């Protein structure tokens, strides 16, 4: 079985959803308490959504100092696969494990509704089973999801293929920045998810685990979870856990 850890911070509220979603995606999910240093031998780590430490001060900032985050950083540095969803993405950004920052939504309101995103690449551990450039429908639910980085960084991210997901219209065209309802938070260049340079750590604002069963109205998120689970399984089979990043063919 593919053991994937889901970190539980005080205030995480998508931890059980994510455990459930990973199970649907075929993994053996394991909850990891924020105060433990050990990753209990998991083969990949997911930071779930929620409001770790209430998201007080700034989303994700306090969680970043949890004991477990030191281990997650080391795991990531050694090439282990780490995915941050929503609040998990914010924690990764605050910890500097993925580039950029997540600012308050430009509309200054929390936004909970379905959005469309596409995977910019289908050759990463997080997207290879997600569906070729097809708009994926899944919910967002956040107040601080406006992706920000300076222009230079944004150019570099685009050049190096680190932009993983973008908000799109129904026809697959990229959403605008401010004022386009297809971009729920005004993210720069409609960025919904990014990864680190090595390609083993990724974060996205939408919630794939909330779109992983037909009864919930969409299964588009399942492909993202399955990408992670299957990539982890293959790497384990090849005896590379954790290992230097990689692009999974």
């Amino acid at each position, binding site marked *: 079985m593919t053991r994937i850890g889901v970190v539980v911070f005080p205030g995480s509220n998508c931890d059980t959803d994510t455990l459930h979603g990973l199970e649907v995606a075929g993994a053996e999910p394991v909850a990891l308490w924020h105060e433990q240093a050990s990753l209990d031998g998991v083969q990949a780590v997911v930071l779930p959504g929620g409001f770790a430490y209430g998201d007080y*001060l700034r989303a994700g900032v*306090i969680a970043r100092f949890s004991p477990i985050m030191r281990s997650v950083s080391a795991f990531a540095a050694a090439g282990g696969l780490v995915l941050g969803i929503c609040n998990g993405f914010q924690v990764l950004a605050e910890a500097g494990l993925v580039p950029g920052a997540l600012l308050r939504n430009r509309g200054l309101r929390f936004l909970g509704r379905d959005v469309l995103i596409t995977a910019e690449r289908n050759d990463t551990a997080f997207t290879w089973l997600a569906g070729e450039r097809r708009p994926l429908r899944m919910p967002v639910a956040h107040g601080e999801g406006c992706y920000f980085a300076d222009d230079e960084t944004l150019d570099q991210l685009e050049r190096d293929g680190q932009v993983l997901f973008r908000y799109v219209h129904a026809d697959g065209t990229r959403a605008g920045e401010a004022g386009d309802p297809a971009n729920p938070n005004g993210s720069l260049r409609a960025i919904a998810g990014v990864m680190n340079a090595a390609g083993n750590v990724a974060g996205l604002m939408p919630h794939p685990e909330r779109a992983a069963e037909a009864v919930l109205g969409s299964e588009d998120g399942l492909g993202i979870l399955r990408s992670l689970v299957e990539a982890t399984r293959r790497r384990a089979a090849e005896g590379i856990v954790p290992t230097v990043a990689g692009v999974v063919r």
Partner: protein
Amino acid sequence: MSAIAYRFAVNVTPKPGILDPQGRAVEASLGHLGIVGVSGVRVGRRIELTVEAASEEAARGVAGRLAAELLANPLIEAHEIELLGSGAPGAR
């Protein structure tokens, strides 16, 4: 016109006695940062703004109204106004 531009900061803080969940969360996290000896954390807002007016009193009046009516919630927050500087309009 003879207007001058005054730059103010409006500091908004939770009133004493009012629960400040943010301050509490920060305090609770200090241990993880290995920081000791910090207490009494209160988290508020700081708004900086420029008012163009003929005199400092007039400018302060505008900033004060803004603070009381828009920037702070008088039921739970206190505010104070701090002059940061002044100069010719347009030059911030």
